[in-house]
């Protein structure tokens, strides 16, 4: 079972995502932004960071990388794809997911341990969780506020495509406390907080994040 982890110039959490993939029991494969070859991976993670410095808009420039062309093609055929933080931003810019991520409402970069509740356990990335389960994982970004128009929001809600919500005070101004969403097909997931930084209590606030990686293992074994 091979999970590709993409590195764009300016990607930061690629090694962490690969570590988490291995902790979940899968093989992590490095993918380079400039290379359209997906090396026969079964799933892909777009990790966090500041690809292209996050200049212009987060994810705006990365979206055009050669590797994205292949990823978009495979995702449209149903390949599981997870975008974390900057990766989520890339997915929105690529229109694989609706909406956009904008400046945090208090305009500061925010790094904190955040409780989120898992609302949709039908995706290949969330199946190990139980519905409504609350988990604690790091949130760290400057532009994590999920915004979209009312119609999009209504369909996200109506189709149960919100996979995770912030619990407690809204940390960044996201509409309806959205922390993560999925596409209509359910294979593409974007998540603002960082499960890859919560795979053990030595380096993270909990090991709750591991669930995303064991989910994908289950999805592939099936």
């Amino acid at each position, binding site marked *: 079972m091979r999970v590709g982890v993409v590195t764009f110039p300016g990607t*930061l959490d690629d090694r962490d995502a690969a570590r988490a993939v291995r902790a979940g029991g899968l093989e992590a494969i490095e993918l380079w932004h400039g290379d359209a070859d997906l090396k026969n991976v079964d799933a892909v993670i777009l990790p966090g960071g*500041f690809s292209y410095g996050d200049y212009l808009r987060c994810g705006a420039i990365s979206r055009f990388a050669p590797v994205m062309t292949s990823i978009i093609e495979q995702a449209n055929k149903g390949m599981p794809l997870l975008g974390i933080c900057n990766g989520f931003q890339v997915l929105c810019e690529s229109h694989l997911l609706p909406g956009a991520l904008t400046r945090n409402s208090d305009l500061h970069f925010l*790094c904190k341990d955040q409780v989120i509740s898992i609302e949709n356990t039908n995706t290949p990335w969330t199946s190990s969780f139980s519905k409504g389960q609350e988990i604690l994982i790091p949130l760290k970004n400057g532009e994590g506020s999920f915004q979209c128009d009312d119609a999009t929001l209504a369909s996200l809600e109506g189709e149960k495509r919100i996979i995770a919500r912030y619990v407690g005070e809204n940390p960044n101004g996201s509409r309806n406390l959205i922390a993560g969403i999925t596409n209509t097909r359910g294979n593409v997931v974007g998540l603002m907080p960082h499960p890859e930084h919560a795979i053990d209590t030595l380096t*993270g606030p909990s090991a709750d994040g591991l669930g995303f990686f064991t989910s994908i293992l289950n999805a592939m074994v099936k």
Partner: protein
Amino acid sequence: MSLDTVAQAVARPDTAQPFKELGLKPDEYARIKEILGRRPTSSELAMYSVMWSEHCSYKSSKVHLKQFGEKAPKSDALLVGIGENAGVVDVGQGYAVTFKIESHNHPSFVEPYQGAATGVGGIVRDILTMGARPIAVMDPLRFGPADAPDTRRVLPGIIAGVGGYGNCLGLPNIGGEVVFDETYIGNPLVNALCVGVMRHSDIKLAKAAGAGNLVVLYGAKTGGDGIGGVSVLASETFGDGGSTKRPSVQVGDPFVEKVLIECSLEIFAEDLVVGIQDLGGAGLSCATSELASGGSGGMKVQLDKVPLRDPSLSPEEILMSESQERMCAIVEPSKIVRFIEICKKWDVTVTVIGEVTDGKHLEITWNGELIVDVPPRTVAHDGPVYNRPLAQPEYIDRVNAQTISVPMPQSSAEIKAALLKLVSAPNMADKSWVTAQYDKYVQGNTIQAQPDDSGMVRIDEKTNLGVAIATDANANWSYLNPYQGAKLALAEAARNIATAGARPLAVTNCLNFGSPEDPGVMWQFAESVRGLADGCLEMGLPVTGGNVSFYNQTGDVAILPTPVIGVLGVIDDVRTRTPMSFNKAGLELYLLGTTHSDLAGSEWAFLHGQRGGNSPTADLQNEMNLIEVLLAGRSEKIFTAAHDLSQGGLAMSITEMVLRHMVGATISLKDTAIDLLSETPGRVIVAVESSQAGALLDLCAKYKISLSKLGTTGGDSLVINETTISLQELKTAHTSTFPKLFG
């Protein structure tokens, strides 16, 4: 528009040169002429003036800094000592760690965001230059009073700049300091520390060896950043209006630096460089002269090959430009193709600008004309050395003679009020408003960060080897007694490492002072260096490098002497570290060390406008014994938690412990006010299971560390004798200060 060449310098020896405007003294200018046997060209003048500046030549501090070498303790851990971009220490298992602090004070006052950002960028390049992967940063900061209008301008920008740059590089921020004092108005201190790790065999040095090897410049293009002074020369050479306006501030591009890091590490991994130097202060002047002096001295550079962002730059300006995110490498011709390939992969601009020769001179040409022809050592290392006059300032005796009179809380109501006042004071208050703007998780190896006593990162995922770093300075003590102040800061930083169970190994420092031309300031500086050198010798810790920042003053008023001391320690298994606090009830709390009435220079005295009396005297033998107790307590699994006492004394430390996991404590004190507020050094609170109390007793007896029982953990309040304060109330007091001030 005339180019000043070596030929012209010979032909027209009497041309007047603006050496004064460039900050050179007449005798310094005379020495340059003597070295060269002629007048310098304007490019040579540019190089000498910037390399002989206080900032680059350490001319006022050199005679004192020597002590770090002379008094250096024997240390097997030191792999690279003072003199390179950063010192390197052996931390075992084949790993080497390099760390260093640098200041970016003045630029951060002028443009807080960019000043702080480029400060982080600069120190990270220093660490990278040693061949190491940067793994974490820290940021000791000082500001004017928290409610001063200028602090409101400067602080948010500096915090955003440190975070903006460090976060974008993917470097976890694992600690720092935020301290407020009147004297830092107009002189905020932005010190930045970076730590990096490599294998022993990967250490790189700044030397240009091997005739025929290529001089390669890579990274950002060169612009007119930070060349303030030298524009004098440019305008002389070009006539007024000939050159465009030069920016007064440097702007950083963290994305370019991130790419530069990954590109450089790939280049190092393939062993493609002979020597390497980052471009920081004094830019190419510094990099070329230092690299050449590191080798046999011979180097030829074609300056017109340097890729420019601003094509109107003169050769003098190119030599001095402090544009960020650039590196200079020495590469064997057979490896240049691969070197360029890697740069292309990362989209990094790369240019061969010269080669190493078997001569003794650094020769720089501009479109074929020789404009610099100098022995490089005379530029890089043989700058002037000053033995500046120093004298104990008159204030010392006066303030030392003062007795402190501050309210000593007695009744329950007074004790509660005192505690709430202390924990909400800007210097003591929770710094999450600051640290939440820093990524502490990136790289996935952070074991400890704010608010822990020290930052700790894992450097090997299999063996769990790790390093811990703490930085400290108590400027109030340094003001009262700079010799003791430096020793006490060293002791505190070492203790902060040891509470977690890491063994202190090496020291770096950033010495922030007022004007060296003031004999009183110079005395403070000399005393601080003497104190640090003596302290390091006694504790067996080598100084591996550091930085001096002078002229931090407004008018005649200098900042408090602020020697920021960084200590690096090693821990063989980060999983077994001692955490800073407890999360369960029923543990016993003990105080290690003895409490005296040490209110001079304390936060409580500061809060009552008093800065007099005598600082405590450092007892480093005792500190070392305490460290042994802390290390043994960790390895013998005696401790459940350990937290050091410093500013704010026991009151502050116990508050930090109970708020960490919101588990309360009940303690009883004899001399309540002093016990709570005194800042006697050499003390630590530990929490142990009752079953371990006997072992703790034995351990302390073995190392002659006094021990007193404070109480037990549990409940949802902090109970001190008859005074009960709910954790919620304590937390609100502690956490609301920063949001209120800067929110």
